[in-house]
């Protein structure tokens, strides 16, 4: 490992035990986030983006379980830490923001209290915590921070609530921010504000971001690198320009061509996302792939580095 890498995920497997059978949500995820990099994790509903994020922080509750793999953060395997140790990583070294900002806040506590509390749990004296909280509210661009400190979550709009969440996530200057669809529930004009804010603040503290989104437009604007997920695997990983201009995996190509664009016939991927209780054999994309061959239904493709920093898991490039 060189010291340019902040987070390395190796063969991460997470299963959920349901009454229907075992849902193989993550099936050997490989992913690397470098220092000061913004890595986009894109994919459709049920591809395992959020489960990956939650598995990194070990926030998977029963019936879910992390089966195997390694999550190496700054040289330590997070999956091997004690409960006490992982708690000190959460929020301080790795923090997370969620999709629905108004649900992520406690409705009966003031905005300021919640922010201050998140600082105090890191053993910062109360007075100092309050100052830090007020300063942070101002830095995330909330109007009138003193009044905002005393207001309740229901008084905030979606955009303002997301600013508060960002304040809570970044106040301890984490090294990695996991952003799980932070702007999906916001309007485009507000989304533009929030995207700009996240980029600026993260640059200030020199953190990396793992940015989860299903919106390829947002990914293209924000990220340096893109990992495309399908049914619990990263099927393609590379530099943003590589992924958008020379995508190799048939799924990535299909996804990019499915975006409505004037003067181009809409490309459609046939079939549906498979059920992860009983996924297809071999490459899980083969029933929907237009270039599938015999081998695809039999052998699971390995992750191959076709070019420096460009990984593809597809038999066409093996």
């Amino acid at each position: 490992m060189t010291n340019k890498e902040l987070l390395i995920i190796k063969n991460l497997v997470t299963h959920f035990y349901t009454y229907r059978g075992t849902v193989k949500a993550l099936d050997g995820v490989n992913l690397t986030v470098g220092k000061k990099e913004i890595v986009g994790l894109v994919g459709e509903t049920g591809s395992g983006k959020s489960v990956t994020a939650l598995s990194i922080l070990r926030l998977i509750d029963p019936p879910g379980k992390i089966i195997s793999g390694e999550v190496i953060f700054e040289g330590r395997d997070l999956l091997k830490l004690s409960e006490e140790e992982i708690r000190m990583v959460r929020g301080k070294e790795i923090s997370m923001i969620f999709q629905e900002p108004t649900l992520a806040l406690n409705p009966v506590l003031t905005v300021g209290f919640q922010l201050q509390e998140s600082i105090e749990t890191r053993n910062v004296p109360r007075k100092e915590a309050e100052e830090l909280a007020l300063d942070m509210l101002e830095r995330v661009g909330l109007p009138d921070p003193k009044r905002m400190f005393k207001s309740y979550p229901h008084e905030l709009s979606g955009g303002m609530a997301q600013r508060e969440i960002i304040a809570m996530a970044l106040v301890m200057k984490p090294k990695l921010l996991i952003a799980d669809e932070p702007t999906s529930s916001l309007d485009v004009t507000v989304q533009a504000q929030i995207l700009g804010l996240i980029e600026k603040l993260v640059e200030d503290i020199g953190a990396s971001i793992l940015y989860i989104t299903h919106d390829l437009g947002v990914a293209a604007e924000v990220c340096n690198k893109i990992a495309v997920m399908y049914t619990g695997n990263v099927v393609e990983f590379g530099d943003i320009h590589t992924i958008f201009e020379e995508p190799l995996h048939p799924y990535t190509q299909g996804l990019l061509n499915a975006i409505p664009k004037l003067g181009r016939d809409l490309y459609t991927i046939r079939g549906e996302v498979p059920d992860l209780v009983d996924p297809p054999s071999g490459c899980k994309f083969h029933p929907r792939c237009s270039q599938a061959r015999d081998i695809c239904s039999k052998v699971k493709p390995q992750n191959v580095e076709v070019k420096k920093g460009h990984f593809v898991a597809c038999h066409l490039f093996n």
Partner: protein
Amino acid sequence: MSSEELMAKVENLKKYFPVRGGIFQRVLGYVKAIDGISFGIRRNEIFGLVGETGCGKTTLGRVILRLIEPTAGKIYFEGSEITSLNRKQIRKMRQSMQIIFQDPYSSLHPRKMIKEIVGEPLKIHFFLKDSEIKERVLETLYAVGLSEEHMYRYPHEFSGGQRQRIAIARALILKPKFLVLDEPTSALDVSVQARVLKLLQDLQREFSLTYLFITHNMSVIEYMSDRVAVMYLGKIVEMAPREELFVNTLHPYTISLFSAIPVPDPEVRRRRIVLKGEVPSPFNPPAGCRFNTRCPLTQPMCKEVEPELSEIGENHFVACHYQEKSKVMMEEIPVSER
């Protein structure tokens, strides 16, 4: 344009929702969801309606079908006024006007089979034998890309894209002429969205339908529509044929809206105009031009006088005091370069 060419038309349409409060539930004020809108939708046209949350686009779609009663104004359908029709008459009209909702998970009855869901409009409007209903249901299911085996299943057995197909089948079974599509693909993933959009396009050509296509997704509207209207706080701020609107954008709101949309192309690093604040509450909209609180070009006049929607090019309507200059002025404002 004569009224015969128009499928639907609204004149100075308004919908105010009263807000009540206090012990006697007095009316404290009104949410002006739609505040004076006029436009027409031509036959066989896909008319796009875009805007952010709370701009009144959904209310407008429902008022046109009289699913919500308008506060003021007139609605015409195929040249005849439908605002004053009674319940029985409007029910007859509804055979030719249908709606498809955003969320295919909540718009289908969970305990009814697909055959019953899709066949129900027929039962309401006609007296048909069961075998005839079954035949029509099957025919419609085929048209939307489903098959006979799906008839005897329940909604929970289907994926989001399939459910939306079922909702489309239910709307089409009466052979309507006009469809209101209220965010039909917003709850779907891109690859599924692509297939539903394609289906909607094919159906429109096959049955020569007219669509009012409501969405907040610009790439969808650009792909689908013939003409587009942009709404902001209960008003239309700009309306033009698609090519004209996307090439010659004039209203400062439309310009900022377009610039805020992320483009799935990393080579494109555009000037992003980031608007201040959020959409004001329609309960108490700003005086003058409604956009004046967020507009980068606001002048004193904008805070007092409300601009009219006026035609400044062929079929291109804009409601802005600085419509001739806005484009140039917007290009001059400094933006933080990314």
